[in-house]
């Protein structure tokens, strides 16, 4: 079988995950247990969801710099309104999905750079979050809490959830007509329009889907942490972008992979654990994160080179 570039792109995150996992198991055999795996991966679930959200935006050639702020906002709403007055909370979350779709519309109609608009929105979401929770607090609704801490037989919740969301997102982006349309907009907007589709609606749909996954990310996060604060997920902006790229996605051209994105997110989460098991000096713990990011991405280079050698042979 010939490896296509697409397959190499997908193989990289899997390989990186496998290598890191092997390293973690070697450093800390206790991680090989049911609860060990759960501890390793459960906080990766919201990251994976946020990464998928970012993936939808990237697939239409845009970039969302407000992802972390939005997930924080959702977390604040979940820990307050959704807990105290579920109906109001649900309405707020629905409205925020609508707001995202509207953003997509504005960005398209006015031909605005998404980076700037979402940069502006990141202030707005943080501001709203600060107003909802001026100081940390709130409580996770019980049902979310129990959903996130459920213990299915044999395979821990974190793994089940990751596989499940990867599957659902894959069906949406790779198999459905809507997914094809969204990626088509990323690949060649003009030809999609010439085929009679409304690019406007496609972009709005991509943004709404992104918001939906980001809402799920915020809710899952609160389910794990039990409470929220306005800055809880600010890191998710960069993590989600890195996850998409690690998972073989590209910034332009509608080339994304849902499975890759989830694996990329898990890899990033695992990289952090791997480093803490290494017990580096605190001075270098931050730097080591960078080094690991570089190493993982260098894997792609290695695979590419291998493939080229094989083709020549």
């Amino acid at each position, binding site marked *: 079988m010939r490896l296509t570039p697409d397959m190499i792109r997908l193989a990289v995150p899997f390989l990186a995950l496998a290598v890191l996992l092997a390293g973690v198991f070697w450093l800390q055999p206790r991680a090989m247990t049911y609860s060990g795996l759960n501890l390793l991966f459960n906080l990766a679930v919201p990251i994976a969801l946020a990464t998928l959200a970012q993936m939808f935006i990237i697939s239409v050639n845009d970039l969302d710099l407000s992802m972390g702020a939005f997930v924080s906002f959702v977390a604040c709403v979940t820990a307050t309104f959704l807990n105290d007055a579920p109906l109001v909370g649900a309405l707020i979350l629905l409205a925020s999905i609508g707001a995202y779709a509207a953003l997509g519309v504005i960005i398209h109609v006015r031909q605005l750079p998404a*980076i*700037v608009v979402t940069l*502006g929105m990141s*202030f707005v979401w943080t501001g709203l979050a*600060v107003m909802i929770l001026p100081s940390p607090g709130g409580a996770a609704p019980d049902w979310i809490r129990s959903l996130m801490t459920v213990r299915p037989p044999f395979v821990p919740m974190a793994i089940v959830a990751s596989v499940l969301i990867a599957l659902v997102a894959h069906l949406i982006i790779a198999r459905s007509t809507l997914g094809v349309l969204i990626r088509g907009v990323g690949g060649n907007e003009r030809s999609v329009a010439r085929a009679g589709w409304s690019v406007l609606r496609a972009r709005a749909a991509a943004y709404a889907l992104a918001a939906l996954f980001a809402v799920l990310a915020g809710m899952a996060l609160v389910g794990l942490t039990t409470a929220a604060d306005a800055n809880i997920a600010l890191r998710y902006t960069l993590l989600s972008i890195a996850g998409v790229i690690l998972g073989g996605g590209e910034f332009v051209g509608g080339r994304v992979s849902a499975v890759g994105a989830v694996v990329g997110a898990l890899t990033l989460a695992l990289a952090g654990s791997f480093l803490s098991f290494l017990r580096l000096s605190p*001075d270098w713990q931050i730097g080591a994160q960078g080094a690991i990011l570089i190493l993982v991405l260098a894997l*792609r280079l290695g695979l590419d080179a291998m493939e080229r050698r094989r083709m020549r042979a």
Partner: protein
Amino acid sequence: MTFLRMTASRPWLWAWIAAVAVFGITIAATAGASAAGLAQAAFTFAAFSVIVGLGQMFVITLGPGNIDLSIPATMTLAGTVSLKLMDGQEAMILPGILVALGIGACVGVLNYTLIRALRIPPIIATLALSFIVQSTAIWTNRGLRVKPPESLASFSTGTLWGVPNVAIVAGLLTIAAWVLLERSGHGRRISAIGQSLPAARRAGIPVEGVRLATYVLCATLAGLCGFLLSCFSGGAALNMGAEFLLVSIAVVVIGGSSVAGGNSNVPGIWGAALFLFLVVSMLNTYGFGAGPRLILTGFIIIAVILAASARGRTAA
């Protein structure tokens, strides 16, 4: 109509209009009494954003995906190492500056090496490298705050005929950047690469050399800014660059440069930097709490972008 035509050919005007409007609203709070002081403060702090913004602008002009996220870490490392080296001695000022610029240049070379050798998207490469640079900064002096030499401290906080010295430095750099971008062959090449890398290659442009030079330039400016900022604020802090990550990007895009690359806008950077400083001052002056202030900041940024795009429509 003539106004529209004027703004159409000068996309940077919008950032300036916004800055002037916000300035007006702010001084209205004190019936104009504070105009001079506020303007001076605005130019002082905008100068730092401009210096890093210029570098970021060159990088963003290189085309989609090109961005330098290592600016904050570079500023921190350049600031801490050079201040530690000078250790308050006047005689060490020149070595201090050279070390700050040298650190910037090194980071730029490393950034580019990662991007090119490992074929990593710049956003990830520079982010990853910034972690390493930040660690190096922590390791070199563990956050101790060393005072700058007296003459540097007074230079960076001083003024010349009422104009802050740092603003003069940033102004000169701006002029140089404008010439480089609009008049020089190098600027043409950057713009060509930003529009289409394969086309630039086929047109005989030495793309790798130009990209390397651009990343080095950006990081060197970040090093210079870190140096000036730590002299200005009486010592380098480990978190002193953090703010400049978003600011450096924001001044470029609000200033009218295209995030799609190839098209940049030097005067707009000043407008945007002043605007970003003044928005916060305005909202602080009117006593908004953190929440509403953030929300308004966000909406004002979007409004400026919308206004600038309305100009784009009428011109077409």
